[in-house]
């Protein structure tokens, strides 16, 4: 770990402080930075011991209620965990990528799933024995979530699914250890005036008959969790594998995105802090023209800017995590706070979009800056910066939604629906 320490843990509860201590101790033993760098360089096969290790440590899906195998953690707790996970895995490739995808989507799957799915998939995923994720993106629809072609047709008490999903996290992992996906399909005609209607979500086990995984992508970074896809040809799922309500898939999906995005944001804060600490160690030591690099304003001021943005982001995540806690315990919150009303989901989505739009970019830009500060050393994989840069870039370009799409949400909530550019 870096000598420079930038964390401010005064806002943490006693338990959250212990979470942090345990995760840091675990990482020191099992996932030091050089292993993170190596895993990213070597790519697949993904590190199995880590999935199990992270699950044993309890960092996955803590927000799932206790009676269903989780720990009933608050979103604030889970955000603290995500932050430390980003700190130990600044590539967001291994631990952080996993934690966010599994927790954000696992929690949402658990919320809308029947008992069988909870027992067969969610609980084992919490234990690290299965992988569950989201499959919404298609060749023709990424940002444009409503522009999807996969279909489901009812046949007795089953649904028959067809179509292709692309750029899906964790397909190789799910193939190997078992699991399944939240899959969005069309259960009615595409309505030109409301293309998001008639979207329905199903839980589809990865080993379903008729489901064929496609070749994994050779991504720039984030290499220790796979990105792949699958084709569905007459895949049959039971009626009660529908997640949530028929035709409401778009809204349920947006809720899932919120849950994953906030954790990506929290992880990105941890990533940024780690990168700044590692860079600080270097610029305080390395002398050029008779002074340590850190003495030159051109470097010091950039460092300070990033540090300030990091702390601002931490507070943004903290506030938003509190809103998430309200979302999932409205009555409790109303009672405790004595306030008259809770937050609307669209209001919470705005805050989460602000996080998703800014914080992964901050982490990526910090990695970029640090490479400049360190020069050639920063560009080599001896240091974490280039690995981190490639890893967090995945969350800037698209994973869990690109930045521009977040801006559309923020614009809608601030300027009003009349100004939404695309309807």
């Amino acid at each position, binding site marked *: 770990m870096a000598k420079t320490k930038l964390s401010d843990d005064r806002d943490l509860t006693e*338990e959250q402080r*212990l*979470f942090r201590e345990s995760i840091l101790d675990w990482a020191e*033993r099992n996932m030091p930075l050089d292993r993170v760098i190596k895993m990213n360089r070597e790519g697949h096969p993904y590190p199995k011991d880590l999935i199990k290790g992270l699950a044993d440590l309890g960092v996955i899906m803590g927000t799932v209620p206790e009676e269903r195998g989780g720990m009933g*953690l608050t979103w604030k707790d889970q955000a603290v965990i995500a932050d430390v996970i980003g700190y130990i895995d600044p590539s967001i490739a291994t631990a952080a990528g996993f934690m966010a995808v599994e927790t954000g989507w696992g929690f949402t799957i658990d919320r809308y799933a029947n008992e069988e799915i909870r027992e067969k998939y969610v609980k084992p995923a919490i234990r690290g024995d299965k992988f569950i994720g989201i499959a919404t993106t298609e060749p023709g629809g990424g940002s444009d979530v409503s522009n999807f072609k996969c279909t489901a047709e009812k046949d007795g008490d089953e649904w028959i699914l067809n179509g292709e999903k692309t750029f899906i996290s964790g397909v190789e992992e799910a193939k190997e250890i078992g699991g399944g996906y939240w899959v969005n399909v069309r259960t009615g005609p595409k309505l030109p005036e409301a293309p998001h209607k008639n979207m329905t979500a199903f839980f589809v086990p990865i080993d379903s008959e008729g489901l064929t995984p496609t070749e994994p992508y050779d991504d720039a970074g984030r290499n220790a969790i796979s990105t792949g896809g699958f084709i569905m040809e007459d895949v049959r799922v039971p009626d009660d594998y529908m997640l949530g309500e028929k035709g409401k898939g778009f809204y349920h999906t947006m809720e899932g995105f919120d849950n994953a995005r906030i954790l990506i944001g929290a992880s990105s804060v941890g990533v940024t802090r780690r990168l700044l600490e590692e860079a600080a160690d270097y610029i305080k030591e390395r002398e050029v023209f008779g002074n340590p690099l850190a003495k030159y304003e051109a470097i010091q001021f950039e460092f300070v800017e990033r540090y300030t943005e990091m702390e601002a982001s931490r507070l943004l995540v903290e506030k938003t995590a509190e809103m998430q806690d309200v979302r999932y315990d409205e009555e409790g919150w109303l009672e405790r706070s004595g306030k008259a009303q809770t937050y609307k989901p669209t209001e919470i989505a705005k805050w989460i979009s602000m996080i998703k739009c800014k914080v992964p970019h901050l982490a990526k830009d910090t990695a970029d800056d640090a490479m400049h500060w360190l020069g050639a050393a920063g560009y080599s994989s001896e240091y974490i910066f280039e690995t981190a840069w490639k890893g967090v870039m995945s969350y800037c370009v698209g994973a869990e939604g690109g930045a521009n799409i977040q801006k559309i949400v923020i614009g809608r909530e601030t300027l009003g629906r009349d100004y939404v550019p695309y309807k």
Partner: protein
Amino acid sequence: MRFVVCVKQVPDTTEVEVDPETGTIIREGVPSVLNAFDEFALNQAVDIKEKMEENIEIIAISMGPPQAKEALNKCLAIGADKAVLLTDKVFAGADTWATSLTLARAIKKLGKIDLVFVGQEASDGNTAQVGPEVAAHLGIPQLTFVTSIESIEDQNIICKKETDEGFIKIESPLPSLIACMPTPGFVPKIPNIREIMKAKRKPYEEWDHKKLGGDSSEYGLEGSESVVIKTYSPPPKGKGIKVEDPPEKAVNKLMEYFEKEGIL
């Protein structure tokens, strides 16, 4: 059976720096941790609990300021069943005598105890006196430098103990106090998040001097038999020399050096 584990919260020695002007430890901003010797002792107690069929209750106790609760929380997460913090302004400034008296009174208050675990020493004071003194106050046998517990049977404990010559096995009747000495390969348990959350619901109490009984003058600075006049670091030793030649050459070089410095 019931075990008590005495623990102390200490400044993280890996983060401690010494003020070059005053020679004292800079405590501001230094994180506090569970004393590593005590962590080892607790791990031993938890290991036994996990191995033995008999029902064992582990009670962690600590004397310290209110923030020492954090160290006890960690003990509960690692596997203690209950924790008691002895905290009172009256306890402040205690030397090893007053500390051990306070701990011993608390242990007596806990009722029948079969084993008292302590760390061999604390990494901040390094006196190694508190454990043996607790045993003396309680009137029970003490086993020091214990590296492992071999067995607990028929009201007897057999431990492995480090000595200057190596190791010996030593047997003692229950109740006894064992002062534990971490072995180089020791890997402490990392409590997971589930355990940390469970720990929140375990019983935790804070006791002051009134709860322990006796006069307030017996505790803390007033009850201490020794006085700390000054703490300071020894002056730095200077650079030293390194001889890296083959032995024959190195011997000559060293002899020359010794003569020059007037050592021989």
